[in-house]
């Protein structure tokens, strides 16, 4: 389930599409169909949750003390 939380929206969406396609192709037992159905429901929920909970993360690239680059949060763009 921890892997599940790591799954990107893109992956979850692609798996959901695949699950629906496999179901609709038919030829599956009732148990297999039910398992795929439940999996599809999980994936759809995961996708919806990700869309609902996501907040745009913005960082700015700045020079690092070691001469390389680092990032710092970029805030305040939402105001005004």
């Amino acid at each position, binding site marked *: 389930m921890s892997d599940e939380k790591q799954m990107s*929206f893109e992956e979850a969406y692609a798996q959901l599409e695949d699950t*629906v396609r496999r179901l609709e192709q038919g030829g599956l037992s009732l148990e297999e169909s039910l398992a795929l159905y439940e999996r599809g*429901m999980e994936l*759809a929920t995961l996708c919806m949750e990700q869309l609902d909970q*996501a*907040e745009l993360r913005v960082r*700015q*690239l700045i020079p690092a003390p070691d001469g390389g680059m680092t990032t710092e949060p970029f805030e305040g*763009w*939402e105001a005004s």
Partner: protein
Amino acid sequence: MFLQDDLLQDVWVEGEISNLSRAASGHYYFTLKDASAALSCVMWRSQVARLLQEPRNGDAVLAHGYISIYEQRGTYQLYVDSLQTAGLGRLFLEFEALKARLKAEGLFSEERKRPIPPWPRRIGVVTSADAAALRDILRTLAARYPLVDVVLASTLVQGVEAPSQIVEAIAALNRWSEKHEPIDVLIVARGGGSLEELWAFNDERVARAIAASRIPVISGVGHETDFTLADFAADYRAPTPTGAAAAAVPDAVELRQRLGELLSRLVAFMIQRLDTARQDVGRLESELQRSSPVALIADRRQRVDDLTRVLQMHIQHDLAMHRAQVEGLRARLEGLSPTHVLRRGYAIVQRADSRQVVRSIQQIAPGLHLRVRVADGEFGATARDVPEQEEDDE
């Protein structure tokens, strides 16, 4: 001497640039000269930043500013606030020549253009951190696809220093992508402005940096009608910064619709699948009953019942037919019955002695007693007026 002269506060001077030097402070010092005279000039860094092109020695220019005294040297100087290339159109001729050259080189060709990934996870943005364009981009991304991660490389977007900063920002984001976190797409953008303000995006270095970026680039410079070399070099040209952000990510509203569609298909399929399963169970049940002995007996019983019902139906049908036949027969028989005939007015005549039915006058003699039978009874009669019979043997 003429320090207070208003005329010297608004001066145009035409000439050729020479002795150009750029101080560490960013201010420019040069001499404007023509065939017969020379004038010292200074241009502050803030004014230099608004130039479209770096001034060069030998450039024929039209300078605007005010004349004042540089007291330490006691000389008059022109404090330049704007510098136009004399001979209008040099800029555009250069622009057109550069565009043609880069095009011939294949920098703008369609085959070079890479697809924009449909599901980016990280987006690099090259624009000014202070400008409205950045807020437009970030708000659009947040509204459409907040799942994305944004890395901003802030740059100047106008003035002579802008091109090198834009080039460096593109390079820095490419390095960041390779060393730290992969970036899927870059947005190079600037809000609307005058032609001069957009000029940095016509710089050859910027166009080349966009083409050389290993990360696909979406450009969004100026307004709908502005086409810069950066736009031609980009993998995808959006009309505005907002348009660039929209082109970079899918739309969550559309995604929700597509998710809803997939969910309905999932549920619809399962309902149908369960229906099929229910029918299968029903079929199995009846198959099971058919092959069990108890069911067999019940089945036989039902068949007997069925047959009985069929028989009864036949029987009733037959009976009805018989009845009809019987009725017909009776009617025919009734037609044949003597009483029926008598009802129509006929009578039967019998000899009273022998009860013999009289069919011929030869059976009759005058005075003979007869019985006459009509429909509702009989009565006696005596024969008379019997015709004479020839050769009567009796």
